[in-house]
């Protein structure tokens, strides 16, 4: 059973021929995949959403966050809980990273659609791992990537962003892997969904998410994503991007609120009191620099049945969080 060498000799030209076939195969496969599989609905829909944000009448209170806030905050419930007639609009965009927040707000303000207040509700994982590369490879052009260099985006991010733009498998690696490993075709189904406009969201939530069944899953360490397993430490690039966003909002006279979306017990345990302390320090600094009001105190933990996966709230969780957010906003006034 001892292994021996294979004794297959190959010259350099022969090797280069193999490498050439490999390269050609790679290009054919990537092109084929790109032709068969469309881009994700949110990738296709982002431009429309950007335009829509500039056209819609700005709500009094605008929620701004990523997928956690997108599915976890229902504007009607927040408005009802506020009870003072102010309008609430959820402008959260799944997959968005903080570095894009500033330009989106600038465009909105340039279109003279200024909200009275903005609630920043990024998922806590985004502070330590902002998904910059995902965002660049899916949304930014080469020129935009280079413009962002030094503004919260490093050289390695730009290289990875370009590689992602070139390769479908790199662009959607995490989703493809999840679909294959979990034998869950929902990612492939979602590719053919119509992009969701902001104005089309409330009905969708009311009809679908409110009746979402109570989840029986238990989220343990294995279910935590890499980001959740990291200690909660806001990166410099996130802080840099958010501070730019805060500056634009403050200069325009928009009131700012910061909220930490609820997390599972497993995440809370993983991040521990040290993580919570870092979050409080981060929000204190934001308060000192821009007068931002922190809604709630530290991390809020919800039971596992309030989540549909380790970090996204289920219907029951979203309803509760929206009510609590409305209460917090009312009390903070």
């Amino acid at each position: 059973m001892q292994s021996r060498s294979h004794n297959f000799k190959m010259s350099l030209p022969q090797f280069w021929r193999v490498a050439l076939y490999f390269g050609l195969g790679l290009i054919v496969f990537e092109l084929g995949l790109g032709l068969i599989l469309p881009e994700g609905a949110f990738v296709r829909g982002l431009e429309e959403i950007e335009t829509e944000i500039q056209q819609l009448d700005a709500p009094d209170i605008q929620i701004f966050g990523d997928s956690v806030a997108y599915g976890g905050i229902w504007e009607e419930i927040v408005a009802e809980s506020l009870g003072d007639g102010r309008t609430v609009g959820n402008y959260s965009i799944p997959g968005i990273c903080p570095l894009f927040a500033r330009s989106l707000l600038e465009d909105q303000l340039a279109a003279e659609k200024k909200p009275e207040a903005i609630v920043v509700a990024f998922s806590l994982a985004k502070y330590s791992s902002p998904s910059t590369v995902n965002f660049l490879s899916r949304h930014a052009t080469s020129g935009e990537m280079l413009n962002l260099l030094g503004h919260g985006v490093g050289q390695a991010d730009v290289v990875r962003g370009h590689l992602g733009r070139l390769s479908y498998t790199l662009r959607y690696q995490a989703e493809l892997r999840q679909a294959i490993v979990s034998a869950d075709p929902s990612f492939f189904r979602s590719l053919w969904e119509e992009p969701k406009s902001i104005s089309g969201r409330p009905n969708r939530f009311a009809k679908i998410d409110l009746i979402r069944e109570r989840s029986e899953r238990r989220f343990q360490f294995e279910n935590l994503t890499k980001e959740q397993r990291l200690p909660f430490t806001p990166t410099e690039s996130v802080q840099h991007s958010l501070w730019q966003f805060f500056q634009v909002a403050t200069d325009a006279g928009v009131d700012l609120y910061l909220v930490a979306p609820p997390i599972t017990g497993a995440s809370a345990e993983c991040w521990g009191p040290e993580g919570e302390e870092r979050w409080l320090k981060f929000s204190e600094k934001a308060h000192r620099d821009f007068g931002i009001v922190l809604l709630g105190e530290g991390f809020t933990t919800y039971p596992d049945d309030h989540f549909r996966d380790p970090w996204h709230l289920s219907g029951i969780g979203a309803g509760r969080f929206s009510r609590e957010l409305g209460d917090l906003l009312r009390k903070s006034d």
Partner: protein
Amino acid sequence: MLFNSLDYIAFFLVVLVAIRLSPGRHRVLSLLVASYVFYAAWDWRFLSLLVGGTLVDHLLVRLLLQRAEGKARRIFVVGSLVFNLGVLGVFKYLGFFVESFQSMLGIFGLGSTSLVPALVLPLGISFFTFQKIAYVVDVSRGRVEPAKSFLDFSLYVSFFPQLIAGPIEKPRDLMPQLRAPSKVTGDDCLVACRLLLWGFCKKVVVADNLGPKVDRIFAAENLDTGMVILGALGFAFQIYADFSGYTDIGRGSARLLGIRLQKNFDRPFLAANPQEFWRRWHISLSEWLRDYVYIPLGGSRGKFSRGNANVLTTMLLGGLWHGAAWHFVIWGGYHGLLIVGHRCYQRWTSTNGIPGRLFSTDVGRYLAVAAMFMFTLYGWLIFRVDSLTQLAAATKALFALDIEPGFLGSLSRMLPYILLMVLGDFFLSSTARPVVRLLHSRAWILAGAGLILFYIILFLGNFDGNSFIYFEF
């Protein structure tokens, strides 16, 4: 800088181009600079430890060479051993021994506050320390030509493809190659690409997908028989894929630079006895322990019992080398006992005229491999547990023969990765010669096989940037 990162790929491509463009003598300097950059990328402060330690050994060897044979020479060898083991001891073992001593005092109600600050373990210290010791000892014994310059010796100590987790190269194998790397042929490129792709696959697909499943088992408060078996099985393949994956990426990188690093693994789970296991698992460490601990202790010369004592001492030290914790020492001792047990069995069969025909047949060998695999699995259980209390609980659970209904479900989630590892090992071995011949028959078939492996990595790989297990040692 982890091998399984885009940073490393970019770094390596730059190094490859730089080395190709470097003329003659400058290649050593270029490789040394690259190696130091690679090490400094982790923590530049510890670069001084690497460079300083190399300088001390270089000076000791220079002084040693100026002396005649005999005691005067031995002083410098001992000086080098004291220095190297002292530095290793301070960084790796001081806290462990002091804490153990404090725990002992605690039994008698004495001492409670920590006496030593927690030190960061410099990456790769166990590996490059062993290489330096091998060099000093071999030079003193005339087994190897001393390095022609400080640059040559520094590169031998810090050559980046094997700096962090081996293979622990012998000076007589690596130093001449670093001085005059061989011309890179098409064969070298092909072997290197195969090692790189399969190494990445083992790390990001097998090890990093099994890791969270194994972690979950060992994080459970109560273990049953099924969970213990799954935990040990999963960890056995996780650590094998992780460590051999690292080695393959390192060997592949070195091969593209014209340097052949030694094989560190040879399908270890096919070993039929404990000695064979250590000839197949972490081969470079086994050879180091044999050459610089076991043989100097007396090896198998002299009384049978003395030989057994030497085996046990060597294996206990080998266990301690893996980490400053009692379960590593126990793991080393366990393997030592397995080897001693096998030596006794061999002696018994030879003295009683039993030809051992059973194990010379195919069926007998399969049985022996299966039995050895079971022993190995228990060894991995000792290696993986978080505490001795957990080891006791796991051992108790193992014999309780209590298997929960979820066992098959959990097994089915691990099996695809284990099968991938087994199949990959099979197809890349000589026993799959017809398959290998088919692959080599046409360039497009070979390229297609490479593409399949590439997309297995992309589609199934866990790119969370997990570190390698052996970096901790």
